[in-house]
């Protein structure tokens, strides 16, 4: 436990501990309110705030704003008195700390480097995150759940977003901060960091598992086929399914929206898929091309 205490009491990591508590608290609060409203909706009652009256801004709102400002200020002052901002040795390009970690809010992306090449993990995926976030209002055409907490009325939207936000963003940050040690190796909190530790995981490319050199032409073709079929199949299968069971939905979405949603969703899901392949099946690449590897 001692190493763990050492890690969480590092000044910068205290921020992450605070983040864990704050996020968990607000997550619980959000879902609690969502379920509460769901019960009201199920009973045919108005949701919270639906029959709102108006109140004066001055003073009720101003007062609450002031209180929050003072509370935040108190919190930050206490934090600043209790913990000094870190200042390590002067920058020295010749000494690379091990592990060299990015700022904590980018550690999720750094963690992705284990599973993807940098151009994907560091550039393409973050860009797609931004694009995806920007696209949310335009691809979510569900008119319900506007202006109140609810889960039942927008299950899929909330589940997908929560998976992305809590698992792929926050959980990976926590892993990057607390569970990654020298050589970006996995360390449990009770394990001592050992700079000389070497873990050799005999990773293979996917096609090599079935006995075909991934750098050969057949390997290339098979890899391309697999990646392509994931993308194309991921597009077509839900389309087929909805066409059969819920054609109105498809019609409402329209082709452009459908393709955008599915592309973003497929890309997002490729992250856990690749993680499982890498961690469980020790597979490094699926498709190797002369320019990039996937």
């Amino acid at each position: 436990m001692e190493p763990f205490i050492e890690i969480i009491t590092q000044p910068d990591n205290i921020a992450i501990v605070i983040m864990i508590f704050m996020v968990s608290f607000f997550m619980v609060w959000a879902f609690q309110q969502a379920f509460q409203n769901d019960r009201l909706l199920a009973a045919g009652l108005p949701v919270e705030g639906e029959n709102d009256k108006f109140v004066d801004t001055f003073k009720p709102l101003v007062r609450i704003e002031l209180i929050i400002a003072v509370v935040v200020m108190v919190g930050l002052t206490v934090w600043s008195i209790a913990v000094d901002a870190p200042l390590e040795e002067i920058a020295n390009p010749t000494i690379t700390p091990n592990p060299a970690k990015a700022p904590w809010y980018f550690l999720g992306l750094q963690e992705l480097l284990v599973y993807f090449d940098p151009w994907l993990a560091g550039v393409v995926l973050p860009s797609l995150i931004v694009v995806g976030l920007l696209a949310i209002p335009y691809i979510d055409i569900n008119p319900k759940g506007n202006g109140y907490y609810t889960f039942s009325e927008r299950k899929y939207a909330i589940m997908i977003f929560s998976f992305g936000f809590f698992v792929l963003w926050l959980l990976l940050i926590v892993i990057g901060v607390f569970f990654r040690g020298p050589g970006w190796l996995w360390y449990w909190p009770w394990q001592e960091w050992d700079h000389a530790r070497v873990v050799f995981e005999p990773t293979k490319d996917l096609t090599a598992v079935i006995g075909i050199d991934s750098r050969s032409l057949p390997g290339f073709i098979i890899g391309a086929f697999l990646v392509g079929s994931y993308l194309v199949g991921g597009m077509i299968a839900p389309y087929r399914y909805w066409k059969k069971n819920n054609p109105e939905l498809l019609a409402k979405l329209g082709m452009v929206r459908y393709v955008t949603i599915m592309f973003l969703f497929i890309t997002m899901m490729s992250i856990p898929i690749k993680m499982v392949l890498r961690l469980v099946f020790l597979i490094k690449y699926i498709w190797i091309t002369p320019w990039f590897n996937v």
Partner: protein
Amino acid sequence: MKSLPEITDKVKKNLIWKSIFRRDYRNTVRDKAQAVFGNVFLHLHPVQVRESAVKLRFTWGMGGITFFAFILLVITGVVLMFYYHPSIDQAYTDIKDLEFQVPFGVILRNLHRWGAHFMVIVVMIHMFRVFMTGSYKAPRQFNWGIGVFLLVLTFLLSFTGYLTPWDQLGFWAITVGTNMGAATPLLGYQGPFSEYLHITPYNDIRFALLGGAQVGGNALLRSYIWHCVAIPLISIILMFVHFWRVRKDGGISKPQK
């Protein structure tokens, strides 16, 4: 001796008091409205708001807290700028001297650092709240987009500030961060297809970010300017839009069925 009401009365009749507050506040509808739109800070708000907006449980106050953190960071940051030179010879000792010599240097730097972390956390929770209440839905789609950009800018603000102390922590965090830039397809020298554009470490996107092939004096200056001037300016402009749109899109979202 005069009684307290007498004194207050006298103060309120004072010329200076009158020049500042113009009129007495009498808890009438008119005066309540006047208090809001007569004040440059408060007039962002409408005169009356819905009950939910006043309750903590709906908004959690996250947007306001983010803005408050931003103001705090601007204030502490400006004071810190007085004591800081963005050069690799001086940056580190300047930060050291904040602790050892500058009056209130320790608390100043701590507030700035922790305030920055706090703002990143809070801005993420703000986004989560807006999503959970579906507040990005019509008519607020555009403002959600602005919010996404503000989120990215918050990350970048914190990221560029990381290098300024010029210590090992910042140096390597920035090195790791910008090395990802080197992998940009087409534009980074390690990225796919870059060879077709004759991209080298000396003309790629990373070079543009750092002002050199390595993190060095130029990178420090660049990150300083991005951190202290460019990104705050852009953020402030986007914040104006963000706040303005909150009002124009109908204030805090309310249940629409």
